[in-house]
């Protein structure tokens, strides 16, 4: 009898020791961030680190939907998430709300500076908030002009460098094709994050911005009005965009382009992998990518995107989570993401990597675009800023407000936010 007891005790001890060595981590990513590819990446990590198991929790399909869920989890101080993949517009909010574990605790100043030097400077600016390192980049992103290579060639056009060219090419092709299912220029216009980029693009292209370097509001009503008017004109004056752009989200346009329904579309880089690899893609090999067009006499502007890994302030395994974060934000994972998900790397040297270029030939010209892409306003109240802008543009596209009215309301709305 005594032997049995001893045996059970020994077994119990062994089991609990094994249990203690086993760490369970949970990472949160969005539905559009290719959970299948992320699983492969985490399998590699688990193989190399026996004793660590990593679970993926997949959130909503858009940045705003994911953040709604995360806000609930984080305001209730729920410890169930260890690592969170956040949009480039969020670090300031995470810092202000105290949701992100400052990474400086794990990185001495010298090591931190050496590490940050490896990344594209825009992502260092986005992730260091008031001197604190809030997150590290997973991948970069920017808006590009995707176009139908086959159609442009058929009509003898080169990829457009100005909006005037793009409009004219779209008009000629639409007239020539006489296809009621074909549309000209696609851009985001519904009430979602992408529409903020649509609103800002013409403002940046004209040399303006929302704030100056000190973060003071400088956006004028006139610049805002011109941006709203430009998108409205694509529908009503030039007739290269269908009249229901107020319904269109980024992924709606991506899906429609995949069915061959758009000549041009302003989309983020992720669209490429879908066009090339999705089994239902009708445009395999027919899509070209170029930098966003300029306005006559203006400059080319793109909206900076990208996703960052941050450690939840409420995680119970912060040290282990930090190890995983360093792996996920390192060059090895960036390369896998570039090849399998057409995610732009946050490391400049990967834009010359032969394997990456084989999967995404257009990455060869993408680096200057990412380097020159403009960041959306950095502010702890960014969600309110975004809401003012996207609802303004959406109302103009639905023709419920004139560009004058909406521009006035947008600037007034921004004044109350920046004035506090």
């Amino acid at each position: 009898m005594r032997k049995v007891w001893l045996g059970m005790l020994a077994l119990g001890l062994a089991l609990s020791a094994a249990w203690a060595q086993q760490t369970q981590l949970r990472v949160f990513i969005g539905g559009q961030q290719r959970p299948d590819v992320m699983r492969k990446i985490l399998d590699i990590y688990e193989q190399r680190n026996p004793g660590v198991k990593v679970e993926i929790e997949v959130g909503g399909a858009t940045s705003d939907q994911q953040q709604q869920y995360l806000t609930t989890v984080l305001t209730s101080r729920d410890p169930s998430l260890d690592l969170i993949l956040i949009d480039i517009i969020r670090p300031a909010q995470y810092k202000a709300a105290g949701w992100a574990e400052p990474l400086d605790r794990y990185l001495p100043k010298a090591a931190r500076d050496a590490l940050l030097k490896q990344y594209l400077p825009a992502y260092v600016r986005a992730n260091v908030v008031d001197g604190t390192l809030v997150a590290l980049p997973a991948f970069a992103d920017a808006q590009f002009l995707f176009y139908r290579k086959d159609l442009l060639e058929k009509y003898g056009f080169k990829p457009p460098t100005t909006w005037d060219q793009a409009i004219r090419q779209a008009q000629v092709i639409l007239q020539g094709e006489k296809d009621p299912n074909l549309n000209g220029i696609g851009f985001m216009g519904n009430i979602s994050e992408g529409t903020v980029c649509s609103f800002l693009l013409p403002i940046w292209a004209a040399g303006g911005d929302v704030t100056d370097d000190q973060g003071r509001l400088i956006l004028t009503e006139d610049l805002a009005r011109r941006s709203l008017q430009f998108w409205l004109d694509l529908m009503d004056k030039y007739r290269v965009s269908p009249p229901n752009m107020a319904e269109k989200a980024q992924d709606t346009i991506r899906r429609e382009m995949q069915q061959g329904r758009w000549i041009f579309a302003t989309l983020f880089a992720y669209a490429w992998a879908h066009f090339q690899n999705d089994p239902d893609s009708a445009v395999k090999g027919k899509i070209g990518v170029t930098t966003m067009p300029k306005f006559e006499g203006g400059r080319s502007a793109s909206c900076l995107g990208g996703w960052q890994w941050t450690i939840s302030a409420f995680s119970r395994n912060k040290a282990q989570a930090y190890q995983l974060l360093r792996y996920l934000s390192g060059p090895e994972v960036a390369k896998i993401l570039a090849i399998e998900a057409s995610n732009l790397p946050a490391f400049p040297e990967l834009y010359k990597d032969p394997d990456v270029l084989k999967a995404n030939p257009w990455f060869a010209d993408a680096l200057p675009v990412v380097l020159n892409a403009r960041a959306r306003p950095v502010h702890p109240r960014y969600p309110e800023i975004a809401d003012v802008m996207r609802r303004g543009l959406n109302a103009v596209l639905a023709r419920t407000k004139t560009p004058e009215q909406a521009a006035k309301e947008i600037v007034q709305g921004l004044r109350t936010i920046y004035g506090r």
Partner: protein
Amino acid sequence: MGRPFRDLSERALAFWLLLPAFALLGLVAVYPVVKLFVTSLQDLHLAYGTQGTFVGLENYRRLLEDGRFLNALRVTLLLTLVTVPGAALVGLGLALLANLPFTLKWPVRLGLLLPWAMPLVFAGLIFRWFFESDYGIVNDILRRLGLSPLYWLTDPNLAFWAISATIVWKTSSFVALVLLAGLQTIPREYYEAAQVDGAAPGQIFFRITLPLLLPSLLVALIFRTITALQTFDIPFAMTGGGPGTATETLAMYIRTQSVENLNFGYGSALAVALFVLCMAVTVVYLRYLERSEEA
């Protein structure tokens, strides 16, 4: 084994038996409501890391100047005014239909139950696809009839009616279920007597069915009005409050302020406004119910 309750007076027994229910109610109803009132008097904006300084009625003062709040209030009240009578009429029709002596009762009952059993957000998503301008079935029908398609979800007026139609479809089955139960409590003899006296069908309906159905109708209306004031899921799924803020309801604006903007102080003040609105409507209905019972 002893019997702990044996020596208690009836009053004390009642107290102990009710205590768990009251404790639960206090925890899940009273505490959150009190907390909501307290938060609505605070400056609690997570984007600034503010920790809830007492600001008195500041949030309420802001409420009165907030055009978006007033618009959301207007949309909410209009939706209530349209969808409550709408659901009551359609629901009454459905209930009368289902009360007919069908030989096969279950397909009728199932058809009645299905919209009610479906989650609100599903209904919203399904109808969004119905009303979608390029691929939606509604515009497809219009095209087949040789009419030009309409932009249902991006025209403020059309969007309002599309949302109203969806809400009526979704909620009239609840009204119908309540009314069907009410119809079945009306004794058959009344109808037989009326027929013997030679009453016309219209007379039977307005003199017998409707008056006897009134208590059930009132109960259905109270529930329907309160859920109408709290409308969130269907417009959220169909338009996201768009175009602009044209179809944004009060419940949606509360979510935007608290969950998206992290302004819990102001969001709470908005929620208190909705709470007061719901209370006011309930009180009016209850008064009416009391009066009609006395009469």
